[in-house]
């Protein structure tokens, strides 16, 4: 039972990863990545790490990938224009990738030998994860959390400073994700000529224009 599940979900993870690479539209790539995350969560479950499995779902599939999808939607990232295919990159890229893969496989074979991984039949309790995090690895854990805090504070600081320089707009227009107006463009700190000539006017746009094109106009 367990090996069969391993191959099914391992296959789904691989297929999702390949689909991620070959899809032209970014939204499909992002959704394949969600599928990969889900399949990986099942693999964690097979290894008995149920806590990690569901944290994987909550954090990666439920939060981070949602942000990815959000950004893709807001930028209205459609199928990108294909670049001119570089013959050199093709000639060098594939062999190097194959070489790296072989090297990785060799490394893992040397490190773990032929000991088969046990799937199923045992369970890591949540309490054990807590013990490991807050007793054994307390210092690394706390240091990592400080690192995250620095990152978050830095991002907020940069955003706040940019807003200050261009003068903060009234609260209501600043937060509301509505139809772009001049006040909003200012609130979002976009200089009028930075939009490539297309200055956003509050004038009503034709009804037939798709929302995506309009969302693109608000400069985020």
């Amino acid at each position, binding site marked *: 039972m367990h090996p069969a599940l391993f191959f099914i979900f391992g296959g789904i993870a691989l297929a999702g990863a390949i689909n991620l690479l070959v899809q032209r539209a970014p*939204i499909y790539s992002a959704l394949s990545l*969600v599928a990969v995350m889900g399949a990986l969560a099942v693999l964690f479950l097979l290894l008995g790490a*149920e*806590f990690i499995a*569901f*944290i994987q*779902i*909550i954090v990666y*599939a*439920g*939060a981070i990938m*949602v*942000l990815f*999808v*959000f950004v893709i*939607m*807001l930028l209205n990232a459609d199928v990108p224009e294909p670049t001119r295919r570089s013959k050199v990159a093709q000639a060098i890229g594939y062999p190097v990738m194959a070489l790296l893969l072989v090297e990785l496989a060799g490394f893992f074979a040397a490190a773990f030998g032929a000991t088969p991984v046990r799937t199923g039949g045992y*369970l890591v*309790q*949540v309490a054990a994860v807590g013990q490991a995090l807050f007793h054994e690895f307390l210092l690394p854990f706390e240091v990592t959390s400080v690192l995250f805090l620095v990152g978050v504070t830095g991002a907020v600081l940069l955003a706040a400073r940019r807003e200050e320089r261009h003068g903060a707009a009234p*609260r*209501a227009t*600043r*937060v*509301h*994700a*509505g139809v772009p107006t001049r006040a909003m463009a200012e609130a979002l700190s976009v200089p009028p000529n930075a939009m490539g000539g297309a200055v956003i006017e509050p004038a009503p746009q034709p009804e037939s224009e*798709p*929302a*995506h094109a*309009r*969302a693109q106009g608000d400069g985020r």
Partner: protein
Amino acid sequence: MPTGIFILISLIKCAIALFVLLTLVAYIQLAERKIVAHIQSRVGPNRVGPYGFLQPAADAIKFILKEEVTPAAAHKLLYLMAPMISVVVALVAISVVPIGGTFHLFGYPTQFQIADINIGLLFLLGVMSLGVYGIVLAGWSSNSKYSFLGSLRGGSQMVSYELALGLALIGPVMIAGSLDLRQIVQAQSHIWYIIPEFVAFCIYLTAAFAETNRIPFDLPEAEGELGAGYHTEYSSMKFAMFFLAEYVNMVTVSCVATLVFLGGWHGPVFGPPQLQLWLPVFWFCLKVGFFLFLYIWVRGTLPRFRYDQLMAFGWKFLVPLALANVLITGVVLSVMK
């Protein structure tokens, strides 16, 4: 128990749960229309069947027979997938909710629950966090401005309030010392967690309203400004699926509130063995019913938030309050040890 019997019992339980849930959703909707009508001094639906009790059946037939419209500019695949994601996620979440004790089926002991897993609460949060894809993809794939704005609002609102929702549940989990919903309920045999964790209860309730996109947090489908929000372009059964998902989500968060704060199926139990088996289930349903009534009651009472108020309330008030609650719970617990 043998695997075959296990699968059979699970299938039977799934079928019963699905039937009960879908019927319940249909009648919550009727109850909502009736209660809101009475709050607003109207009569409400009373044409179909006695007192309008067959209205849900009429609605279902109408939903099925309506024409399916797919906008020409829609992203077909995602447009089709979005309602499916919403419904599947909503229905999967309910599978770990326990509604009573243990009983015997075919001579094997089994629970009033489809899947008894160790980290049921985490499973619920994980599955519910995926529900946002249904809304986000629906709005984007419809390729219409109202849908798009609705799904942007819905997505950011759900991601924001998920945080407060999860943090509010940490307090009770710390006291119970388990993520297993059954053990959380059993830990409440002396005192319901609504008493020591009243603040967390209030935070949970508020966040749950936002998480299910209900008034006063129904910005994603604010009909005055957005048409119908993220499902503006959906018709017929596809629309009904979003509808269904919203009401199933309401049931789910009500169940979680009952399990974590109101002592689950605890209540006075007496009488013959059969009654002792079913009374806990009755108490559980009564408590869930209370929350469902509260949803409808609030809908008939409160106006809608403005969007920036909603975000500021979530991030600047609920999240810090929930964090403080976790901190205080931790301090009190370690002092009491």
